[in-house]
């Protein structure tokens, strides 16, 4: 079932969730819980936020690991309905893949980025506050690329209305991978007095925050990150642009493949195709793999979007999976960033990096 990634779902019991994929099992939407009420489960290992009149925990996968692990265990007990037991990932969620999902019946409201942006752009400009005015001007600028308003959406705090001017990011969704690439090409050369790209120091801040120094050469990180045109500043407000796959663009329908866990592996290869590296989950097609038959490096974290280009060499550490399609030949892939990886040593071990 198709449902656009980056939409926001609030559940009947007050959770705020980000839709975390574009392809979903029937009757349930794969998500990452973002804000969770503290009535049933609470952890001081996570930041608190006061949102929608409730004290919430912000689920942070980079929080102290034992605190995170304990929190997730309690979450599973208190909210079993939001733990998805995948039959295609080859093992039950007790010991295997941790997947969050919201069953359709538990949805209170869906916030659609495209609808939200359309509403926002229909507002008289004089009615917009500073943050929304910046969003409005930025979207006008993006539309100069040839994209239509209908190709774009706005998400997270701007969509939900709990942004803070000068603090909150602008999160833009582009519907369709081709549209997204067209926009990236436009941004390679486009100019605007309010537009600037992240400096090396600003990228290094990010590098330090996510512990990247232990797994990635600093210069190579700067090289791969600073050429991305999906992040920058507009009117000194950080913007991040995401792609969401159209239904016809999705690589594999839910249930059309099965995945067999073969353990942690590190693999090197040459990027044969980076077209699908702009979405979540995204992937790189590789050739010349150091491990025979591995033809794909898949990731669930946006940090790995657009890291390597066609012809470049990359290295990844993650779960080696045999992919068994319902029809056709099986192949192998390396998957980085399943939710369960954040609960064990894989959080530090997994990576994708450019090596040349």
């Amino acid at each position: 079932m198709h449902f656009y990634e980056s939409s926001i779902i609030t559940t009947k019991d007050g959770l705020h969730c980000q839709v975390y994929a574009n392809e979903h099992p029937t009757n349930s939407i794969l998500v990452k819980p973002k804000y969770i009420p503290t009535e049933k489960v609470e952890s001081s290992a996570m930041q608190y936020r006061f949102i929608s009149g409730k004290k919430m925990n912000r689920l942070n996968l980079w929080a102290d690991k034992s605190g995170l692990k304990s929190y997730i265990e309690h979450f599973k007990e208190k909210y079993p309905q939001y733990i998805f037991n995948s039959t295609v990932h080859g093992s039950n969620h007790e010991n295997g893949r941790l997947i969050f999902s919201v069953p359709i019946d538990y949805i209170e409201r869906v916030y659609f980025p495209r609808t939200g942006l359309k509403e926002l752009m229909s507002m008289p400009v004089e009615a917009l506050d500073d943050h929304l005015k910046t969003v409005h001007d930025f979207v006008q600028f993006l539309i100069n690329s040839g994209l239509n308003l209908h190709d774009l959406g706005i998400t997270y705090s701007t969509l939900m209305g709990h942004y803070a001017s000068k603090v909150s990011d602008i999160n833009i969704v582009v519907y369709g991978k081709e549209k997204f690439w067209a926009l990236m090409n436009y941004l390679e050369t486009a100019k605007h007095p309010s537009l600037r790209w992240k400096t090396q120091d600003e990228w290094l801040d990010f590098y330090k925050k996510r512990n990247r120094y232990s797994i990635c050469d600093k210069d190579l990180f700067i090289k791969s990150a600073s050429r991305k045109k999906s992040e920058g500043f507009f009117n000194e407000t950080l913007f991040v642009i995401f792609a969401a796959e159209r239904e016809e663009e999705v690589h594999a329908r839910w249930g059309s493949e099965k995945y067999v866990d073969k353990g942690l592996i590190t693999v090197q290869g040459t990027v044969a195709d980076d077209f699908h590296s702009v979405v979540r989950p995204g992937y790189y097609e590789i050739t010349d793999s150091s491990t025979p038959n591995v033809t794909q490096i898949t990731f669930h974290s946006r940090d790995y979007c657009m890291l390597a280009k066609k012809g470049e060499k990359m290295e990844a550490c993650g779960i080696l999976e045999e992919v068994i399609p319902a029809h056709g030949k099986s192949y192998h892939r390396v998957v980085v960033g399943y939710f369960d990886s954040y609960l064990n040593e894989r959080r530090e071990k997994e990576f994708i990096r450019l090596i040349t």
Partner: protein
Amino acid sequence: MAHFYESTLIDTVDGFQCKSYASEHPPGYVIVKPKYIPTDAIQGEGLKFRFLFEKCLIRFNQFAKKAELQKYVEQFRKTFPDYIYDCPIHKNWFYVVPLNKIKTIHDPKHGLQELLKVPIKDCDPYLVLVRELVDFLTKSGVSSSNLGITHSTLLGNYTFGKSDIDIVIYGKDNGWKILNYLKTASHEKLKWKTDAEWATYYQEHKTSESSHFTEQEYVKHMIRKKYEGTFGGTVFTLFTTEEPEETWFKWGEETYEPLGLATITAKVNDHSSSHVRPGFYGVEHAQYIETEPNIKINPIIPLKKVVTYSIPFVQQALNGETIKACGLLELVTPKNKQHEQYYRLVVGYFDAYLGERREKEFIKVV
């Protein structure tokens, strides 16, 4: 349905947001003022837009130009007929939310208790200020469990530096306790408007209410009210709401016959419910200064109350003071035959904003 706290935000199943406008309500309904309405329901000039929760919404404004407001209300009636209650006991109408149209009730009290549980380190500067203000207000002796937060503070769509802090006080006694405390209490972040600032405010914010006051009169009335000030540079407003056992009337125990516009003077003998909505001033020795020609007043029946739905006229007068007021004169007939009929004067019914009463109604101390 009888009691539902005033100043509570309600989301409706039809996508608009309302604020409860009284604490006593007709069975099956909550009396409200629509606050944000979807753009497909109302269109026209002079309306302010807000982007809230994924939607472009219109801020309903009772002070829009009258001709425009009449059009908006007409559109609203057509689009949302269920949200207008033609009240048989008032022979007047109210904006309401039928109980089966309520989607979410945003409870100010619960919201504040949730906020107080958030570690300060995780509160942004605006929420830190809210916490400090609440701490300060509890020095009055009123517990935080009798306070609430509402509007953007509760819903989280505030803008630090721009949004007010809106505090709800539960219970009339608690309301007076805080308002009295604020007469003398000091805090480095607390600031009240000075006489000069109120005078400037008067000059810059001419309204139909203030038009009945000279600058000097306006300043005199406002300076002693303690329901609005600034804390750390942010405006705060205090709304007192009645507990179920202390509402000053029960829905259905009286009927009201509207008679027409009247101007009266009277001596206040009870201001204890003048800080809630609707609020009232108990009065005696009323004299009719002016009435519409068709009104026939029975001199045996006393005028006992001056009622206000309009916030600018709450806490306007104290016991012993003489007020002058203009509003809709009503003959009140209690259901209990042992109670006698009386007159009351009402300021700020919803229909007043659509007609000439908008400019004419007021309450002032003379």
